[in-house]
């Protein structure tokens, strides 16, 4: 029916539709700085055409709602990279503290764990000095003083490491409540989304869920599984269910062998969480791998050095004439584990240092020479004490450097993905193609830079074997 009112109706619908679309744009602008907000775009449906005098006229379009411009693949990739970056970041913080412990503090007048290398050298130097004057009491006292400094620095390093372990344990345990509140929130949002928008994008509800999932992935390594009716299930990277649509499964803690372990139901998932990612993964790796490895090396040093020195002292004759029974200089450990924390000097009388050889007079110094020579013998895991310590510190530095590299690269990857997400939020296929072009151009140019720098570096390091790129 062709009437003026039809034409008015058509115009009025067009204006209403434009106004609704403008409202969506206004909503986007208003939320431009809202964390986690996903831009919405208007969806339109064509109205039934109007027939006027047998001629069909288009009847415009009606705005039927808004759809969020959500890129689930890209967001999942971002979550994944964020959980890796979070893990390496929290591990790196812990490793930096460990490394700082073994870094000499040139400004400090008191001896610290960072001086262990110097302590080892000073202890054996004091024994060398005793060779020249085996009966000199002040030289004997100097040996005990150097031994006390060495034992004190090793035991204080072990004590600091144990304190760091406790602190990491507390931080890891503290993460549990955050994980549980996020999984509960995600389960509730799942219920709301599934009941309100089972077949279409749920807008802000999905934004909130994405935001919570993103926060969760920074705490623990997770996999996300989309389910029917816009639902979402979440598992740990090892497959332990944390959220199944409207139900969440709480992470609980318990003390096992003096540290906090993590459970879902009755299943202990601590080791899976350690390798899974997120800040919890980083804390647990530092607590269960890095600190135990460092303590183990320190224990080995303390045990081997104490045992070798004590054995040699008991093989000589002390100033009181005791032959083969002079006693221990360092506390004797029966096992390697715990030796560093327990290391101390038990000898109080400097006369009991057995400088003389077995059966020789007290003026002899052959056993002092033998004790000083321990500095050059492979008494700690096949290495000299100084080399063992130096290699241990180098290995620690190398671990720190490796984790630093990973963390920098993962953070760069997160930045790239965030750039991509923000450039795609006003999405259309042309924008997307342009965004991909920038990504690929950047990669190609960077590959060229890398290739050329690599060639230049190889040329330099090979002293000119290879010079220019053809």
């Amino acid at each position, binding site marked *: 029916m062709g009437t003026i009112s039809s034409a008015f109706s058509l115009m009025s619908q067009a204006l209403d539709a434009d106004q609704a679309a403008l409202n969506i744009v206004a909503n986007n602008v208003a939320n431009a700085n809202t964390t986690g907000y996903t831009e919405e775009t208007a969806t339109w449906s064509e109205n039934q055409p109007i027939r006027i005098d047998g001629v069909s006229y288009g009847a415009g379009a009606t705005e039927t709602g808004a759809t969020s411009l959500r*890129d*689930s*693949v*890209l967001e*999942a*990739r971002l*979550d*994944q*990279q964020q*959980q*890796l970056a979070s893990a390496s970041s929290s591990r790196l913080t812990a490793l930096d503290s460990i490394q700082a412990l073994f870094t000499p503090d040139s400004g400090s007048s008191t001896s610290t764990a960072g001086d262990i290398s110097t302590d080892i050298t000073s202890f054996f130097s004091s024994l060398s000095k005793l060779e020249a004057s085996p009966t000199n009491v002040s030289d004997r006292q100097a040996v005990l003083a150097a031994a006390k400094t060495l034992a004190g620095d090793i035991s204080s390093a072990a004590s600091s490491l144990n304190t760091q372990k406790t602190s990491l344990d507390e931080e890891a345990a503290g993460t549990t409540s955050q994980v549980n509140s996020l999984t509960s929130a995600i389960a509730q949002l799942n219920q709301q989304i599934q009941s309100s928008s089972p077949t279409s994008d749920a807008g802000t509800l999905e934004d909130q869920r994405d935001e919570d999932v993103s926060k969760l992935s920074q705490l623990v*390594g997770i*996999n*996300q*599984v*989309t389910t029917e009716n816009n639902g*979402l299930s979440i598992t740990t*990277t090892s497959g332990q269910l944390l959220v199944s649509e409207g139900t969440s499964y709480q992470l609980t803690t318990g003390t096992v062998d003096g540290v906090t372990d993590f459970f879902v139901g009755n299943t202990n998932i601590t080791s899976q969480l350690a390798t899974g*990612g997120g800040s919890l993964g980083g804390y647990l790796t530092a607590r269960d791998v890095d600190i135990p490895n460092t303590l183990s090396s320190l224990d080995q040093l303390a045990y081997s050095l104490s045992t070798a020195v004590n054995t040699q002292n008991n093989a000589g004759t002390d100033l009181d004439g005791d032959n083969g029974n002079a006693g221990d200089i360092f506390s004797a450990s029966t096992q390697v584990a715990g030796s560093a924390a327990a290391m101390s000097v038990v000898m109080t009388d400097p006369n009991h240092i057995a400088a003389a050889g077995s059966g020789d007079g007290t003026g002899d110094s052959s056993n002092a020479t033998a004790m000083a020579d321990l500095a050059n013998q492979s008494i700690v895991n096949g290495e000299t004490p100084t080399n063992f310590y130096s290699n241990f510190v180098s290995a620690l530095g190398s671990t720190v450097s490796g984790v630093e*590299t*990973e963390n*920098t*690269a*993962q*953070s*760069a*990857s997160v*930045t*790239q993905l965030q*750039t*991509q997400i923000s450039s795609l939020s006003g999405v259309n*296929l042309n924008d*997307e*193609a342009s965004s*991909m072009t*920038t*990504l*690929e*151009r*950047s*990669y190609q*140019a*960077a590959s*060229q*830079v*890398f290739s*050329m*720098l*690599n*060639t*230049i*570096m190889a*040329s*330099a*390091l090979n*002293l*000119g074997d290879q*010079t*220019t*790129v053809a």
Partner: protein
Amino acid sequence: MERMGERRRQPQMKELVVEASRALARLDADRLEELALSCQALNRALPPASPEDGRALVAEARDAAGEMAVFARVLEATRANISVMNRLRELRAGRVEYGGQPGVRCFRTESGHGDN
């Protein structure tokens, strides 16, 4: 008297590498292309004119080794991100079915760096 060009400081190789990593993180294609041209020029200038320059280059190369490792990792992660973006583009273009049906939405965690 010094000319303008001589006063300008020659950037250390380490700085070039760090800047390339940063530019790649920001996806600054223009800057990366400029850096590629700089590297071409640097490469053409080899071998060093004097033994002193050669020793300086060796020292610079050693100094930049750590930053090159970071750069290599960022490149790897970028390649992985490109592959994700390509999948996304295919998805948008409707060439693959993905995400419409219930299924795994997130890949498993990588072994420390992006390469899937």
